[in-house]
């Protein structure tokens, strides 16, 4: 049986929910989970439950691969060879996208970024084209099928695997092209926007940066991340790191609650593959009501506090 590698992402020594969806994309394959940033023993139960036949702790010459992105990519390329992988999948997170692009260049293999569906046996992948306006089905002519999967796009389904743990130290060295000088920590404990299962977004109608507190309180009740529209970012109410849409982040949560967002085509480019979209807007003619699932016409400063209270 052909083996497919999955690059597992972790947080606080637990498997990220998004990685389980990526494993589900490889259902039916001999799944080899590659772990670089956590102790595999603590992940074993979860990874076995979602189909990992093997769990490999991957290091570069016995050391952590995170010293440089090029080193991590070289270590992954070595793992592809060692385990004769015919496919390697990861999450289209900020780091996942960067790493797989480096890996694809090193291996000189095609790579499909940010897939919403894929068929490993047929080597086809479906992904967004034209800022979320169309889906493209791509056929990949590759020895090793490399792809990243849009977070939350594929629902995780359990499927038992043996989950045998082993270690692989790749014989690779950092080419020294780039040096990480510093990591500036953002707000600790903040849920990553691109990977959040639920997102509450504030648009121009939020009127001031301090009013995001109202959305944060609502988000905290349901484990959601808080986003912003371009209009809100351009008005200086929120940093660009919170922007959803064209020139911001692409997200695909199971629930997206847009508060005071008008619904420009560029905003939809970043969130239209969400499972359920709810809009709350004072303007009954706002374009967002034509393209969402549920709408409430009302002032966000009236509606959101009630929502927070009742959740």
């Amino acid at each position, binding site marked *: 049986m052909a083996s497919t590698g999955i690059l597992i992402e972790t947080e606080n020594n637990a498997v990220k929910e998004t990685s389980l969806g990526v494993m589900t994309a490889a259902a039916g394959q001999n799944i080899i989970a590659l772990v670089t940033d956590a102790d595999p023993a603590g992940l074993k139960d979860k990874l076995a439950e979602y189909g990992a036949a093997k769990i490999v702790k991957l290091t570069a010459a016995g050391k952590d691969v995170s010293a440089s992105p090029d080193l991590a990519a070289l270590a992954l390329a070595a793992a592809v060879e060692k385990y004769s992988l015919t496919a390697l999948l990861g999450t289209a997170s900020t780091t996942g996208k960067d790493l797989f692009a480096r890996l*694809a*260049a090193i291996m000189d293999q095609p790579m499909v970024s*940010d897939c919403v569906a894929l068929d490993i046996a047929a080597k086809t992948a479906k992904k967004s084209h034209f800022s979320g306006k169309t889906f493209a089905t791509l056929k990949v002519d590759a020895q090793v099928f490399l792809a990243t999967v849009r977070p939350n796009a594929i629902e995780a389904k359990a499927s038992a695997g043996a989950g045998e743990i082993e270690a692989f130290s790749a014989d690779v060295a950092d080419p020294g092209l780039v040096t990480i000088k510093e990591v500036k920590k953002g707000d600790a404990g903040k*849920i990553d926007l691109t990977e959040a299962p639920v997102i509450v977004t504030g648009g121009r109608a939020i009127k001031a940066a301090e009013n995001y507190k109202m959305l944060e309180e609502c988000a905290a009740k349901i484990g959601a991340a808080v986003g912003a529209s371009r209009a809100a970012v351009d008005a200086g109410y929120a940093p660009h790191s919170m922007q959803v849409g064209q020139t911001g982040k692409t997200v695909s949560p199971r629930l997206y609650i847009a508060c005071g967002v008008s619904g420009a085509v560029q905003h939809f480019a970043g969130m239209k593959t969400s499972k359920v979209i709810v809009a709350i807007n004072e303007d009954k003619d706002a374009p967002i009501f034509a*393209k969402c699932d549920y709408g*409430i016409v009302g002032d966000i400063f009236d509606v959101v506090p*009630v929502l927070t209270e009742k959740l």
Partner: protein
Amino acid sequence: MKICVCVKHVPDTAATIKIDGDAGFKDSEIKFVVNPYDEYGVEEAVKLKEKNGGEVVIVTVGKKEAAATIRSALAMGADRAILVTTDSQFLDATLTAKALKSAMEKDGLPDVIFTGKGSVDTESFQTQYRLAHFLGIPVVNEVSTLSVDGKKAVAELEVGGGDKQVIEMGLPCVIGATKGLNEPRYPKFPDIMKAKKKKIDEMALADLGIDASAPGVTLEKLEPVPERTGAKMIEGSVDEQVTELIRILREDEKVL
């Protein structure tokens, strides 16, 4: 200092994409523009030139019609351009990177190469990495702050969860630009007129010895993303609306 900026000719993000056949779209009816992320690269390159002197060269792989898009980039202050022509809007990223590399080698390698963090048409987010790998030089993507001196570049980029990395690399290097790096300028009328006289060197993919007959990735099908047809509006008092919304999300949709 010589700076190259890779610019892609893409449909305006506000344009409606009409699908034509299985995997084509009607490109004659819509407006094409400089890929929005590439604009940050052009602006940064022109600012570097204004500070340190040198030359900014736009390098595009695209259809012949891309010349009009290149003029917009030249109007922002770039000096000249190279257009490698292909018939396809969807040229495989590996082939595009090979074409960019060959065109730059032929012209003389730059000290800094800018690209956008990705293109808004194919959204494949990898051409800059392949270009850097072919040239054997460093690459950093999604750069929102940059400083370049004679020998090195220091870039800041978001790495998820609001964390930022500060990365140092030697020159030459490839920088993938994103929003926040700068505010791209709007060319003034005299700049637009001047851009009309700037030189665009045109060559075909085959002139660079690139065989596009066996791409690694082929577009098989293009289909519209299903649009929602309009919301179910929830009526009543705020209290009633919110209660009904929560009920729907919990019981009907099961997303809470």
